[in-house]
């Protein structure tokens, strides 16, 4: 077992993990907008330029397609680049490089080339980010074989999975929910530490309802589940952590126990991650269920508005989660 350090925030966990990876392996380098002297807009790479040099901490031109495309080339040539998209909303110009190139490099060369690349990006709303600093992008990419998509929610999981992502020989899209950056704290193990990609984590055990979620929503679900303990409603909260691949065993084991499933994600419902989970459970465990599968998701509108009522109505409140859990438990 690794010893645990003092409690740190999610953003500090990202920073510490990147720092350790840079210090441990000179094949690792960072390319992104404002990652150098500015130290990234969230100060994640502050001081990296001085410590690791401009060759390894590259202030990219303002052009996302080439941030990923150049990193794909570096990866093909044996480096382990970490490409940063400043906000997930800016990832669209790089869509082809991620979907058409990185995800298919190993496949189209039949293993002749690999693409050990991590694309990190802050996503999600609730931070007054308006249309273009609030988006959730996971559903646009989780359809794509060849990609791995991670969205951990705690400092420990960030360290374990970001390290695993950097050490992976395949491209990983690593999603960091902005609202958890400074609001979530936790302990992380000291030293080298990885979590296997594709394993969910039961953040709270329970018996009456299974909640499957990821990112910021996990923390709200935990709050809601805790409050429901006072009402003698027992909720199990599963943090997916990994969106592609996804942990079938963890979901089915829990659902077969509680016989009720609530899926929660901030991303809009139509064609979202929850649709795939619901389909899988329906295929594998329909007759183990005592209630229809329920999804609590963001609204089907193009984006999150800037005005507070627009943002609040988009984000799923803890109260709504609590109500949904209670309704399902009583079904």
């Amino acid at each position, binding site marked *: 077992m690794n010893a645990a350090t003092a409690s740190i925030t999610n953003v500090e966990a990202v920073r510490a993990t990147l720092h350790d990876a840079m210090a441990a392996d000179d094949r690792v380098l960072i390319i992104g907008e404002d990652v150098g002297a500015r130290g990234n807009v969230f100060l994640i790479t502050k001081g990296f330029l001085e410590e690791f040099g401009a060759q390894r901490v590259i202030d990219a031109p303002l052009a996302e397609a080439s941030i990923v*495309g150049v990193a794909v080339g*570096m990866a093909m040539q044996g480096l382990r680049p970490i490409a940063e998209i400043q906000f997930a909303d800016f990832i669209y110009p790089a869509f082809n490089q991620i979907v058409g190139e990185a995800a298919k490099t190993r496949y*189209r060369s039949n293993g002749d080339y690999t693409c050990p690349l991590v694309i990190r990006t802050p996503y999600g709303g609730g931070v007054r980010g308006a249309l273009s600093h609030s988006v959730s992008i996971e559903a646009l990419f989780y359809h794509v*074989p060849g990609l791995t998509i991670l969205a951990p929610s705690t400092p420990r999981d960030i360290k374990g999975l970001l390290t695993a992502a950097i050490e992976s020989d395949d491209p990983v899209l690593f999603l960091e929910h902005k609202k958890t950056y400074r609001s979530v704290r936790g302990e992380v193990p000291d030293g080298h530490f990885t979590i296997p990609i594709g394993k969910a984590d039961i953040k709270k055990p329970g018996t009456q309802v299974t909640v499957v979620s990821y990112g910021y929503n996990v923390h709200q679900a935990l709050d809601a589940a805790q409050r429901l303990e006072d009402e003698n409603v027992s909720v199990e909260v599963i943090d997916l952590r990994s969106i592609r691949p*996804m942990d079938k065993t963890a979901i089915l084991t829990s659902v077969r126990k509680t016989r009720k499933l609530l899926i929660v994600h901030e991303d809009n419902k139509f064609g979202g991650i929850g649709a795939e989970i619901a389909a899988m459970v329906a295929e594998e465990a329909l007759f183990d269920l005592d209630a229809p599968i329920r999804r609590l998701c963001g609204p089907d509108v193009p984006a999150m508005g800037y005005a507070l009522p627009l943002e609040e109505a988009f984000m799923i409140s803890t109260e709504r989660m609590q109500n949904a859990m209670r309704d399902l438990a009583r079904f």
Partner: protein
Amino acid sequence: MAKTVTARAATLDRGGLSDEQLVAMFRNMLLQRQLDNRGFQLNRQGKIPFALGSEGHEGLQAGTAMAFARGSDILVPYYRDLGLVLGVGIAPLELLTNMFARAADLSGGRQFPNHYTGRARGIASVSSIIAAHCTHAAGIAYALKYRNETGRAVLCTTGEGSTSQGEWHEAVNFSAIHRLPVVFLVENNGYAISTPQSMQMAVDDVADKAPGYGIPGMICDGTDPVATYRTMKIAMDRARSGGGPTLVEAKCYRFLSHSTDDDDRTYRDRELIAEQRKDDPVPKFERVLIDAGILDDAAIAALRADVLRETNEATDAAEALPLPQADAMYENVYEGPYEPWLE
């Protein structure tokens, strides 16, 4: 192999190349044309679903291959580079195995014809997405520079239509900022499928774009292998010695339709092609070698026969190879077994 004789003509512009190298370039051009036509023939015979043509690009590709250092330089090609990949070490049998989509193909029968890969020989894997490989070339060149592997260069090829893509601009710009060891060779054949150069850009010369990036731009006659070799040698040596990127425009003409699925009669006159045939690189270079006394008619006939024999043997051998097993589709999706739902 054809026997060569020592050159006598004092007027020959040989670019510092020996007789053997000049003949090797010519043989490469003959082989490229033979294989190119073989692809179209096999398609018309119903034996392969698709082929791409490089006819008209033989001169510049033979000259460029001569400027490429095998075992050291890295080629990031596009799909009209048949002669170039031949020139840097891919065998005709491998190209035909790719055309026939056999299991032994370098991509396992996954890729379209002329979509190459070959890590051991310094050839990057490419897709059909125009200019998506250009940023890869910049990243590969960055890795060479990062590791202080001086003396190595990256060669990234495109057609002129690719220069309309944002990613082409991004790749050249990034390479220029970091003075990367890379050469961007634009094989300007005048057409992107049917769209003429005049609808891609408002300049006559692609090389005119270079000053906007702060790098040198060079133009060469892409129908002339020696002229292309001279230009590419300067550009590749500049990259290898830390002088940064160069944009080279080799002007040529595409004689065939874009592919076996294209019909160029819908967008260009036959007279136009006939006019361009006067500059066909293959007979033009053949005349140069005869005039220089390097090859005679008998030697050329022997070369052509040898190239046809090699192409026929490779065709038969490739056709006889087995197709991939359907289950092979699940291989090499990720490092381990492919399973989106983990149990």
